[in-house]
């Protein structure tokens, strides 16, 4: 499958030059020789503890940060080519954590139109694309509201609409639900999943919520600037002990299975959501009941 984002031997450090000691450079290395490919149309979740470099990595995907070594290719362009900057950003959109700090205009539809205005899209087409984008995130009826009247989840969906109006191939979301309440979180995740399935937009979701990561096709776990696990959610979450050792949790269902394994009961560590968990327990219980009843008969 074709990849939309490709990081090759990516090395990045933050440097802070110490004036007092004669300009020596203190390098804080975030990644060294990191390789990662994101396939077109996929839903990838990047998981990691605070400070593991996941946000820094995301910022490389649309040339907000440029690699200190190695290359990042986004939508076919090398991110270090300065004159391709706007092409890259048009194809790879980015949604940030705080919805308040990414809404520019004081009317919802004007904000969604912001990127299109910057791109110089003609008026009639702009109207159509703004309406489409608002409908795609289910915020069309709020198009004339002021952002301050909306809830956190609604604001974040407006921010997403502002990105999809550009018709990007890929959206990178940097902890989009971290500041939202549970209802807002569900709304946002539902929207993201629908965009991925129905519109075929590649999604890269940076998160530290396991349940959100479990909704992806692929989970990449990062720790100290390195990719330590990269697989389907089922396989990733079955490494319960490894995840715990880097300060991460597993979805509650997996946690239950893990505890069952610990106490020597039959279990399946590849269970990552409530439905699968309930199914497994049902099968387990009916089986044991059968065995119990057979025992009784004997």
């Amino acid at each position: 499958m074709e990849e939309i984002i490709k990081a090759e031997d990516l090395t990045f450090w933050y440097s802070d030059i110490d004036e007092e000691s004669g300009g020596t450079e203190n390098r804080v290395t975030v990644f060294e020789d990191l390789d990662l490919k994101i396939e077109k149309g996929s839903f990838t979740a990047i998981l990691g503890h605070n400070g593991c470099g996941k946000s820094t990595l995301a910022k490389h995907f649309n040339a907000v940060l440029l690699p200190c070594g190695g290359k990042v290719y986004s939508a076919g362009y090398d991110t270090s080519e300065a004159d391709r900057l706007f092409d890259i950003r048009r194809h790879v959109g980015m949604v940030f954590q705080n919805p308040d700090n990414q809404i520019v205009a004081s009317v919802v539809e004007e904000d969604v139109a912001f990127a299109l205005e910057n791109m110089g899209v003609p008026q009639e087409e702009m109207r159509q694309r703004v309406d489409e984008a608002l409908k795609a995130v289910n915020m069309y009826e709020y198009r004339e509201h002021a952002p301050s009247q909306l809830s956190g989840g609604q604001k974040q969906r407006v921010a997403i609409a502002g990105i999809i109006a550009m018709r990007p191939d890929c959206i990178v979301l940097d902890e989009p639900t971290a500041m939202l309440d549970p209802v807002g979180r569900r709304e946002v995740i539902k929207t993201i999943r629908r965009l991925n399935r129905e519109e075929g937009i590649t999604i890269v979701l940076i998160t530290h919520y396991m349940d959100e990561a479990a909704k992806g096709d692929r989970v990449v776990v990062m720790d100290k600037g390195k990719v330590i696990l990269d697989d389907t959610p089922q396989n990733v979450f079955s490494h319960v002990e490894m995840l715990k050792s880097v300060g991460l949790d597993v979805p509650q269902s997996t946690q239950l299975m893990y505890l069952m394994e610990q106490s020597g009961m039959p279990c399946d560590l590849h269970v990552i959501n409530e439905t699968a968990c309930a199914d497994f327990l049902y099968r387990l219980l009916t089986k044991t009941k059968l065995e119990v009843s057979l025992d009784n008969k004997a």
Partner: protein
Amino acid sequence: MLKDITIGQYFPGTSVVHRIDARFKIVITAVFIVMLFSASNYSALCVPLVFFAIAFMASKLSAKLMIKSMKPIVPVIIITSILNIFFIDGVSVIKIWKLNITDNGLYTSGFMIIRLIALICGSSLLTYTTSPITLTDALEQMLKPLAKIKFPAHELAMMMTIALRFIPTLIEETDKIMQAQKARGAELDSGSIPQRAKALVPILIPLFVSSFRRAEELALAMECRCYNGGEGRTKLKTLVSGGKDYAALSLSIFFLSVVFILDLGKVSF
């Protein structure tokens, strides 16, 4: 308490005044202000008042709202009128101790009060009937010709848009910080005025710091949405002017000429 701020508040509606092109409304408001300040006698001063009355009736806004908009300038009005009453030379009407109230003083201060009130009402009518975003758009378009002499018209409009957008956000944030400081024992509502002013410092500093952080994040988000200045930008909505806009402008100019005629006719009262 912070929720009561009415500056720049917009009351949506469909009246004629609401529908007039914002650019024309700005020009008409300017003409109105010129009327107020070029009127040199009471009969000339009546003209802008009549003009305002017509505009106000047409806007279908409630009188209560207008009175509310006056609230913040009441102290200003009182102070200027007191100063005017006492410190303008003329024939003494009433004498209290060493202070003279003169006929000229009364005349001028009455004039000032009417002017000030009309000024606030007139400009409030503009902001009440025009959404802030249309207002900034109008300003941007009006200032566009100045871009040729390097005047940053787009940047100015962008700054205004962002400022307007962040007013509610920052008010909310101020409220939160105030609550947080109160929870830590800050006394904001009691004490002498210098004490209260000092108590504001622990509110303003966090507010500033967080504004800078917001500004940085917003700039990043704007860049990620391909913002690169005013060049080659298109607009979701463009302002269109029609017959009614020209009619309203002509009306205001007609009133202005009446003021001039009355000024010339009666040089002094």
